[in-house]
């Protein structure tokens, strides 16, 4: 399957098609409604749209799925952001007494951006990505997803490709949505190990005791380090790269290595030496020396923007929204197939619009038979529409995610009513 050539100029033609026939409104509404448990949860949610010519509108809100559809089909937004659930309908916020209009709840979110790794990747920089550095996202997702699940007990984490150079995580558990600013900030800090900007050379500092979270994260990094860093990024190959690594080491170690590297050129062997030197130091010195771990973390550990996660009212790009620069759809990522995820295979809006025009395959004709019982012909058509495109599998992923959440909710209800003893 080839990705149809995408041109930003064709967005005005493609977007109407996308919003009329492909955008999964039903699932989208099902998500943000969260089972209708809390009154007005969907109605009080803020959306923001970026329209043609960079016109930005905030405090959009909708009473029903239908209203959402109609509005989006009318406005054809270039970008869609999702904000918080407020105390009142966002589109009426001007009528509310000053001070009463408050952001109440929102998913806990994380934004990992490849540009934050520019100091440690040699293959690309800025907005560019390639299969080599994409591994950083894989590592980030593995580490963070494990921590969110095992350490924090969150069960419903939706990972989404941002459309260009990073990934987002939406933690949708009820407990997560209710977190305060202080709590979100604490979670983000717990997950942060790489600190400092351009002026900081050594961005990871480890000391005793090494917390289990760090140990777990290192285990993940170790799985990828040899292939990604030593081979792919060649961090112990060229002199320039080696110097950067050496800058992170204590003086005496650096001196010894400089000498050693004059004869030993093999990156794997070089790394083994660094590792054993660290282990030796730990045996003999009183203080803990963890510089080999610090290097691994500095080059591979996820770098998240705490400010994105902190704010309850922070707006983040919506899943299934289009990235105007690349045309790619922000699709959910399948964690079961994480190592095989390829951002360059993510469908663009031009591709899926093109696929719409293709004749039906046999598979889809069978599906049609099943759906004959559906009431509306229009609905039928819509369901079939995205199904015949590359978007299908991503909507299915989203469906599974929503199904799990619904299942959880049912479990909670049963547990609370005392009828059934479920193990959490």
């Amino acid at each position, binding site marked *: 399957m080839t990705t149809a050539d995408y041109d930003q100029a064709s967005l005005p033609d493609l977007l109407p098609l996308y919003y009329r026939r492909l955008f999964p409104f039903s699932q989208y509404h099902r998500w943000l409604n969260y089972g209708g448990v809390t009154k007005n949860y969907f109605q009080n949610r803020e959306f923001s749209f970026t329209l043609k010519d960079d016109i930005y509108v905030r405090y959009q809100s909708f009473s029903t799925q239908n209203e959402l559809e109609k509005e989006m089909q009318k406005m054809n937004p270039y970008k869609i952001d999702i904000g918080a659930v407020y105390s009142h309908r966002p589109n009426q916020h001007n009528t509310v007494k000053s001070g009463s209009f408050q952001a109440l709840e929102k998913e806990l979110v994380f934004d990992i951006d490849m540009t934050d790794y520019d100091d440690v990747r040699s293959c690309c920089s800025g907005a560019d990505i390639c299969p080599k550095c994409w591994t950083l996202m894989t590592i980030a997702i593995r580490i963070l997803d494990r921590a969110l699940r*095992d350490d*924090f007990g969150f069960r419903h984490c939706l990972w989404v490709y941002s459309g260009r150079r990073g990934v987002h995580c939406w933690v949708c558990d009820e*407990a997560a949505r209710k977190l305060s600013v202080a709590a979100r900030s604490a979670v983000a800090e717990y997950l942060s190990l790489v600190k400092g900007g351009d002026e900081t050379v050594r961005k990871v500092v480890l000391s005793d005791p090494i917390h289990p979270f760090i140990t777990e994260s290192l285990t993940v990094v170790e799985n990828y380090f040899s292939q990604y860093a030593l081979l792919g990024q060649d961090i112990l190959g060229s002199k320039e790269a080696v110097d950067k690594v050496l800058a992170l080491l204590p003086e005496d170690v650096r001196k010894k290595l400089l000498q050693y590297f004059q004869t030993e050129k093999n990156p794997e062997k070089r790394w083994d030496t660094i590792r054993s030197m660290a282990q030796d130091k730990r045996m003999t010195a009183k203080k803990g020396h963890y510089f080999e771990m610090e290097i691994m973390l500095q080059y591979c550990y996820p770098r998240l923007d705490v400010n994105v996660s902190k704010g309850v009212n922070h707006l983040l790009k919506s899943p299934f929204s289009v990235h105007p620069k690349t045309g790619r759809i922000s699709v959910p990522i399948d964690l079961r197939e994480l190592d095989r995820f390829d951002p360059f295979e993510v469908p663009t809006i031009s591709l899926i619009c093109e696929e719409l025009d293709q004749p039906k395959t046999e598979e889809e004709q069978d599906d049609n038979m099943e759906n004959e019982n559906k009431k509306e012909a229009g609905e039928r058509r819509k369901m079939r529409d995205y199904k015949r495109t590359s978007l299908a599998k991503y909507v299915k992923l989203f469906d599974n995610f929503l199904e799990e959440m619904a299942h959880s909710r049912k479990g909670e209800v049963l547990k609370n009513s005392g009828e059934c003893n479920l193990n959490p």
Partner: protein
Amino acid sequence: MQFYSRRKKLIGNSQTEQLYGHCLQFYGQPPIENISLSEFETFAVDRLKLLKTVENLGVSYVKTSELYTKKLDAEEFLPGLNVRNCETDEYEKRRKDHISHFILRLAYCQTEDLRRWFIQQEIDLFRYRFNDLPSKNIGQFLQYNNLHYHTISIDEKKKLMDKLVTSSFAVSGSTVDGKDFYKVPFQDALDLVRTRKVYLNGGYVYIPHQDIVTIVLNDFRTRLSKALALTARSLPAVQSDERLQPLLNHLSHAYVGQDYSIQKSIGKISLEQIDPLSAKSYPLCMRQLHRGLRDSHHLRHGGRMQYGLFLKGIGLTLDQALQFWRSEFVKGKVDADKFDKAYAYSIRHMFGKEGKRTDYTPYSCMKVILSNPPSQGDQHGCPFRHSDPELLKQKLQSYKVSPSGISQILELVKGMHYQLACQKYFELTHSVRTDSGFSLNHPNQYFMESQKLLGGPGAGVKVEVKREDNPATKPPNPSPHQTPGPGNLPQEVAAEITEDLDSFFQDA
């Protein structure tokens, strides 16, 4: 008499059937019974004494040390507020503890400073009581107050041993074995999560016993803080009750700052320096007293107390003080013998070397202003409060204060802002502006700040804090606030109340 119920929130259902089911209280619900005015007053004063003790001990001793605990034990016992024994059914004590806490909320909710002070002492008191609870009572307490913190079983501890030890610097293998560990939702332990100082799993942090106190204290602080804010909003309704208003006002004006009893710069001031210091760094009241002493070679009792303790506060040793007073009195009508017989004793008393050996503390502005007003021939008191404005003006003129400065001061005096007037005097005599954080409430503070500015020897800072005391007997005091119009308590009753409180501050 009724309490106005400010919070309708109910904690639990079946658990609150027995009102004082647990010895330690979180003060979630206000009391809803009737009590007499005198019980109201006694409870309040007793608890205030206790909190002041908590404050003083907290400055002198490490808050978790044995010495601290022992001393606080004794203090708590006196007013019958020692509630820590969970085994016996101490209904009366718990009731007093409960009611007195809520009364003081009324008195201490009004300003940020008062709230902060109150919260700090209540937290310290709570920590001291909580630390002493045996394990099972802690569990009861947590349950009783709907704090979902459970201990983990021995098996679970064994399973998690490695993780627990590597998560926290403070936790070793023996800690895990010996102590209880609590499972707390991570939202209640954010600081520990943020800094990764604790083992986190499944949304719960595993906290050793000694740290559960911190968690509970944070909870306590948050609740109390919110409650005080709510109380402040309902205060107008309470204050309109004429019976309560004078008492609450007096309670909250109790001096709550440093006591300046012992200076680090003790002995750093020589007697020759006193005259120049009196002109440069003394507040007006002390300058007046010093002048009076120099002029008539004598001061009456009130003046001797006020000035004598001030001198102790600026760093004079007992020997210096004796020499100072003797040399001055001897120039007058008193010979050395008489001095030694009559006056030396009281100076030694001031320094805690006689009688009860209580180390008395220098008077705060509040005390100088509110108690023991000077009569004819007295030099003590606060000039801004007690001097006739004309005389005050003349005095300021003689001290070379500018005319515009003088009128500013007199304006403040007219508005009854005596301490602000003194602060203005400070600014004018030192040619500075004091910043917004500076709030003058103690003559020794004035001296210290002045010395700091001038780089003098009296600028040493670290102080030990003790109770304010005055061995002398006192005449009854007038109401602290001259609120005009109807609604005042009859003069004697008001005086009685204020005298009771003052007698606490002047432990006879």
